[in-house]
């Protein structure tokens, strides 16, 4: 009973701490918007779930199923980034040290945190479902609300998925090297691989089999929907379009009666909830109980110096220091551009281990020496994935390490330190892509070279604005990984900020990018100005 109470309080305190922040309202608002955009109007030029031009009419069955699929897909990625901070918060606020002095067992702590994560994500799922129900009425294709058809798929499909995400987030937080940016990248890669495999399987087969390895819960509902489409439209080839996709024309609609729930699928989803609990308990093995001497569970910023007590002791006699300060000659406070730029660059690279430089050099050489097309398609995308964790600290460094009062009280921080911080990020982008740049130059491809330069200006600007306005590196890491995956790796022209594909150059992406860069820098400037003025 006592353990249950402790578990409940651990979960409750963390949950309340999170939902009472004003930023959480913004998150919930985003979920409401997601529920709306998951069900595009018939006249919209995009679709989020379609089967080779077919979709179900917006009745509760289709709405419930589609929303469950899409929420599972997106919350399994975004949800991880949103909740992966609870152990960090205890560390940063110092409450971790207090918790460590209580008898709370490690498994109870990690389980409590996992349940808090789950509660937060479940609340988001609820918001999406409520918004989707309202959207169903707005779309007006079927005004009858069937509560179970609407809510059931989210309960049975999405919630087990977010339970796993909740547990994995805790696990990553307790394993030192996965706790920060690298863990975010690892998870994003795992997520992408899982989604690709899932969609490939879904496209390859319509056989309805509850799959024990279907962590996302997508295969089963997709298979049921595909079977329904096939039954009505024999010419349907089995393709699935999942996620935002530009429509070629209006979608053909059909009436879908909803999910069937064999016992096997319910057991399979319960299995994943069990897995989630096991992962949460496994995290206890790695949890160091905030022991600063163990692992890498150290706060990012220095803890404040403790107050000294009033002392009655007489202080020792100390001989005056033999060193005197030499008066400064020229007036300090003058702007030394080169020196400050180099200082910013050194600071950005201060955490980088020696092997990072080795890999970066390897990529430079590979992009220089490989045939142009191979260099462009194969190596070039990774040139600007490699410095991700360096860029992700831009904009948040001063608040993360609590040096803001020191830095912002120097002369002209907006006109000096801010632009040179950006310039240092640009420098890193240009140097890491130097092999590709030289290759473009030699090959007489000025358009690609221009696109490269613009990309080098874009990435640090994006990092700065997101860091300054959100106060966290996760937003940039998530957004950049998505941009990189869709734009740079899969060459979607509208998002190809590196100009890898000829199509990107053809649609004048570089010039649009220039406008975006200016807007980002203005936004970052305004954000930094607000920080300094407060």
């Amino acid at each position, binding site marked *: 009973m006592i353990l249950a109470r402790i578990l409940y309080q651990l979960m409750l305190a963390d949950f309340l701490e999170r939902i009472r922040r004003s930023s959480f309202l913004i998150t919930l608002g985003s979920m409401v918007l997601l529920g709306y955009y998951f069900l595009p109007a018939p006249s919209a030029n995009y679709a989020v779930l379609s089967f080779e031009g077919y979709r179900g009419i917006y009745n509760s069955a289709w709405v419930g199923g589609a929303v469950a699929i899409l929420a599972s897909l997106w919350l399994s990625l975004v949800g991880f980034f949103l909740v992966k901070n609870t152990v960090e918060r205890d560390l940063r606020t110092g409450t971790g040290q207090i918790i460590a002095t209580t008898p709370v067992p490690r498994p109870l702590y990690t389980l409590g945190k996992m349940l808090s994560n789950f509660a937060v994500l479940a609340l988001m799922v609820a918001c999406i479902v409520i918004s989707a129900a309202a959207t169903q009425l707005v779309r007006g294709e079927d005004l009858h609300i069937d509560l179970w058809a609407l809510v059931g798929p989210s309960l049975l499909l999405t919630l087990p998925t977010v339970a796993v995400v909740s547990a994995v987030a805790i696990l990553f937080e307790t394993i030192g090297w996965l706790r920060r940016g690298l863990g975010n990248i690892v998870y994003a890669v795992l997520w992408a691989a899982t989604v690709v495999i899932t969609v490939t399987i879904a496209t390859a087969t319509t056989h309805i089999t509850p799959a024990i390895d279907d962590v996302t819960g997508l295969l089963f509902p997709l298979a049921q929907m595909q079977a329904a489409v096939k039954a009505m439209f024999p010419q349907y080839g089995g393709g699935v379009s999942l996620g935002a996709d530009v429509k070629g024309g209006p979608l053909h609609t059909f009436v879908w009666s909803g999910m069937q729930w064999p016992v096997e699928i319910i057991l399979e989803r319960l299995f994943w909830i069990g897995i989630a609990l096991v992962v949460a308990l496994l995290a206890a093995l790695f949890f160091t109980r905030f022991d600063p001497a163990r692992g890498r569970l*150290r706060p*990012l*910023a*220095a*803890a*404040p*110096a*403790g*107050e*000294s007590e*009033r*002392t009655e*002791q007489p*202080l*020792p*006699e*100390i001989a*005056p*220091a033999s*060193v*005197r*300060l*030499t*008066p*400064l*000659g*020229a*007036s*300090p*406070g*003058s*702007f*030394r551009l080169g*020196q*400050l730029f*180099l*200082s910013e660059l*050194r*600071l950005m690279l*201060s*955490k980088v281990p020696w092997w990072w430089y080795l890999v970066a050099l390897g990529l430079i050489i590979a992009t220089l020496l490989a045939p142009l097309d191979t260099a462009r398609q194969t190596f070039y995308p990774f040139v600007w994935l490699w410095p991700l964790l360096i860029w992700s600290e831009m904009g948040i*460094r001063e608040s993360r*390490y*609590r*040096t803001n*009062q*020191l*830095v*912002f*009280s*120097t*002369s*002209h*921080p907006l006109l*000096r*330190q801010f632009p040179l911080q950006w310039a240092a990020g640009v420098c890193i982008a240009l140097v890491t892509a130097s092999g590709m740049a030289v290759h473009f130059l030699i090959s007489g491809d000025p358009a690609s070279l221009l696109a490269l330069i613009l990309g080098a200006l874009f990435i640090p600007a994006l990092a700065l604005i997101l860091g300054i306005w959100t106060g966290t590196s996760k937003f940039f890491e998530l957004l950049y990984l998505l941009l990189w995956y869709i734009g740079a790796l899969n060459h979607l022209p509208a998002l190809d900020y590196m100009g890898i594909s000829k199509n990107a150059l053809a649609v004048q992406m570089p010039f649009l990018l220039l406008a975006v860069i200016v807007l980002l820098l203005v936004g970052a400037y305004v954000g930094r100005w607000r920080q300094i*003025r*407060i």
Partner: protein
Amino acid sequence: MKLCIEHVGKVYGGRVWGLRDFNLELGPGVLGLLGPNGAGKSTLMRILATITRASEGKVTWNGQDIAQHPNELRAVLGYLPQDFGVYPHLTAQEFLNYMAALKGLSAKAARQRIDELLQIVNLAEVRKRPLGGYSGGMKQRVGIAQALLNDPQLLIVDEPTVGLDPEERVRFRNLLSDLSGERIVIFSTHIVSDVEAMATEIALVSSGTLVIHSSPEQLLAAVEGHVWEWVVPSAELTNVREQYVISNALRRNDGVHVRVVSAQTPGETAKLVAPNLEDAYLYYRETHMKGALPTAGALTKDIR
């Protein structure tokens, strides 16, 4: 060189006044801001360091409003916050180099300055160790060093001796005394002995207002004849505390030796003794809290 603080106030959340109608005029010297936790010392220092803006009033540096022209002050400012962080992967030398670049020092001047400062704050031998491995006191000394990089005309140090061991505190006191020459130094503390050792002027702050601004000698003179040493039985200590301002109480074999601040003798066996700054601080704070003190400006004028 003049710093004027005129009717400065700072409100938080539209309701809580951290500072109210604060007035002070400072020239070269060392001002000790003395007051309990939450008195408004750090709020004032953050306003002077251009970290935050006053909600009302004005601060001028050599006649220029610092809210309108903060960079003119920042060019000659050295600031050590009460609570600050460092970059854990940089060494002390690298961190100070970075701060020197931000403050506009040339590479050559920075090198020399950093060498000297590291020796003065006794970190020369660990200059190449990452800051993440420093103790709280060592980080505090790095903070002191960075505040002095640009030879500031206005040096603001908030609780500078927190985390320092006794030897380091004495070093810092000596350093501040050496620096006081032709610059304005403002330091805040709740440790009275630090103020005794370093300050040429004292401002007592309580509940966001200035209680009194005076020299240490004048403060002591004001409570001359008001400080008593008195031995009371242990059982009566609670009563004595309720009736009088007690600056110290030591238990001995013959009873509790209390140090009482009072205009009248507290008891027949009480002996008049020479006051110290702690007595004066407590006297003014208690009297201010009871609302029995005239305005700080009037009192300052009278005492001066």
